[in-house]
């Protein structure tokens, strides 16, 4: 089971994702409401995996992925955004994200992506 940090500007999404993760036996070790907070929190709570929204105030998610990967090249990050157009997916993967989940999502899809990301180095 993984230590996970959830990044989303909507408290509702953090709650829903947290519930899905906890019900599956994962531990939510940190939360952040924008990209900048995510970078700071990542350094403090050192999660095994991050779920990252894209459209957020202060700093959007793809910029946060780039910075987190610069600080920790082994970081596992899964994007979780309503903005799932191909250009966003490509930019996210190029920035270092492992997977991309389009909102609204089914809990199975989230857990499957986490399982896959955790299985790889």
């Amino acid at each position, binding site marked *: 089971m993984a230590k996970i940090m959830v990044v989303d*500007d909507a408290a509702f999404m953090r709650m829903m994702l947290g519930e899905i993760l906890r019900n599956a036996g994962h531990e939510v070790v940190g939360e952040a409401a924008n990209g900048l907070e995510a970078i700071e929190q990542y350094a403090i709570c050192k999660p095994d995996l991050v779920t990252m929204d894209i459209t957020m105030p202060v700093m959007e998610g793809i910029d946060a992925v780039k910075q987190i990967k610069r600080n920790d090249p082994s970081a596992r990050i899964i994007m979780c955004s309503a*903005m799932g157009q191909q250009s966003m997916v490509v930019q996210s993967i190029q920035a270092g994200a492992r997977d991309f989940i389009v909102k609204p999502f089914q809990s199975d899809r989230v857990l499957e992506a986490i399982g896959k990301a955790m299985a790889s180095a």
Partner: protein
Amino acid sequence: MTTTLTPQVIHPFLESAANILGMFQFAPRIGEPAEPAKPLAGKEVITVIGVTGHMRGQVYTGMSQKDALKIVSGMMGGAEVPELNEMALSAISELANMICGNAAIHLSQEGVTLDISPPTIITGNALGVVAARLKTTSIPICMDGLDGLEICVALEV
């Protein structure tokens, strides 16, 4: 340069709203577009999302407070939602984000690239858009047992 909004531009927002509400166990039907003098009149919960890129302007959603509670309940898998607290408002703004985000996915497949802002939510009585500089089109999304969601698109291409 401003050109008239075509159904091809508006439709992805409606399809996206109907799909997403469907995922939350509602049975939405898309109503007829209109250009009312006072869009969103009487709605008690209004979300605003800014749009930039190949189109610019705003996309609004409006609903009654009673509907907002029912919609949030649907989004939470049927849990009872007695009041429109911060968490419930966060859910409504996330609904607007998903509607616009998924519409952006569809439009990108037609070569129309959009970016959207994080949502703002406005609550109160007797709300309505009184003076938009962009032409606004309102479309009702009807659902059984609900007053219905109004999608208001104020975009220039």
